[in-house]
């Protein structure tokens, strides 16, 4: 009697184990075969995004051998420690672009914590002279149809920041029009653009304060890279 119970238990456990093993092998196989295409398509998507906010062709130029003359933007990375001005609570990656070994532009990641639906993640491209090349929303949880116009998929609002800088627009103007600033917003949703304008402004201040350090880091990194000819 008890022997048959044990037998049944073992059989049941073995069946469960067999299914788990088959499932695990199947997943491992698919994971391995899809890893390369997934990495490639994600890298492509990032480069496409970079090209939107940093359209200058020189950053993507390749020489005869297919190597990126100024280093592939994707691989030109500086770690940025948590900083209140950027709103990042863990260290993030900033991508820099050099032209002829001189620092030319940087793409910072900033997070606005005061969006209507939570955090708004931004990608902010700043040129060497402190002007904005472009801004895009990486992710947000704003109300669909109301606050989501900050996303390029829904409207061109985010392009208002192109060519802006803290020299061109004084600090008291870095607000939405409702608060006495210069930035347009759409009726019904002011919390969202307020958060974005504020985050972009703070990122520009961060760049202004740290630019010498960032320039040095970027130029050092690219020099080191050039040495090992490892620019892919």
């Amino acid at each position: 009697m008890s022997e048959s119970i044990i037998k049944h238990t073992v059989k049941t456990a073995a069946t469960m184990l067999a299914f788990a093993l088959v499932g695990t092998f199947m997943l491992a196989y698919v994971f391995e075969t899809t890893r390369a295409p997934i990495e490639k398509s994600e890298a492509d998507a990032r480069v496409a995004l970079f090209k939107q906010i940093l359209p200058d062709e020189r950053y993507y130029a390749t020489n005869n051998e297919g190597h990126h003359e100024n280093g592939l933007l994707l691989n030109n990375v500086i770690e940025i420690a948590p900083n209140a001005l950027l709103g990042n609570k863990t260290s993030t990656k900033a991508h820099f672009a050099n032209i002829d070994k001189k620092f030319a532009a940087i793409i910072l990641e900033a997070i606005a914590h005061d969006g209507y639906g939570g955090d708004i993640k931004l990608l902010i491209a700043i040129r060497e002279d402190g002007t904005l090349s472009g801004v895009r929303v990486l992710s947000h949880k704003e109300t669909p149809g109301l606050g989501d116009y900050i996303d390029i998929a829904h409207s061109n609002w985010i392009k208002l920041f192109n060519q802006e800088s803290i020299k061109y627009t004084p600090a008291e103007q870095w607000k939405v029009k409702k608060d006495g600033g210069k930035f347009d917003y759409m009726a019904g949703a002011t919390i969202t653009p307020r958060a974005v304008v504020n985050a972009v402004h703070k990122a520009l201040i961060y760049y202004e304060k740290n630019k010498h350090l960032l320039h040095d880091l970027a130029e050092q990194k690219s020099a080191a890279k050039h040495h090992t000819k490892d620019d892919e």
Partner: protein
Amino acid sequence: MSIYKDITVNGLWKQNPGLVQLLGLCPTLAVTSTVVNGLSLGLATTLVMAASNGAISPVRKFIPSEIRVPVFILVIAALVTVIDLSINAFALQLHKVLGIFIPLIVVNCIVLARVESFAAKNEPAPAIFDGFMMGMGLTVVLGLLGAMRELIGKGTLFSGLDLIFGENAKQFVLTVIPDYHGFLLAVLPPGAFLGLGILIAIRNWLEIKNSAKNKTIALEPANTQMAPSHSH
């Protein structure tokens, strides 16, 4: 009446997962803000249902009844992960749209319900067909609900088609009501509840009308009724 005809009628009408069984309401309500979103998730779910029914049916006799639910969940979760990785690797644009909803198919109880109530008791061919038809029934409901919400909420149809088929598909986006300022309620979650309620009401009304007609004409005794596959 052949078994396939029964399965078709059950999936699309009698036991429609979205309107009668009311299983898997979470994705039904969450993603149907546009037609494209609704149809895409519906088709992904259809694929998972056909695959999981097809995977369980051939091995149903080897699964002891004590561990059938964990085995079903294991198989469904593995299949969903495989489909998720494949879409990510080979259709990145679609993955961006459906991204977070694909893993959620695992917890959509309609998938488990069909495996438990149909695939575990039937041959592989009808089981796959049942998964497909139940999925199509859900897809139709998701598409209709998406159309209602998009039309009332934004005044368009098929917006976001370009995310799946590329920029060229933008011309197929119908602006049904020009200069529409939007009706936010339809886009937000309450609109999904109201829309689904209306669809269920319409279906019930048609059903009552239909059965009343059948009664008066009394074609033949109601021997077409299948034992309802029990729903929760």
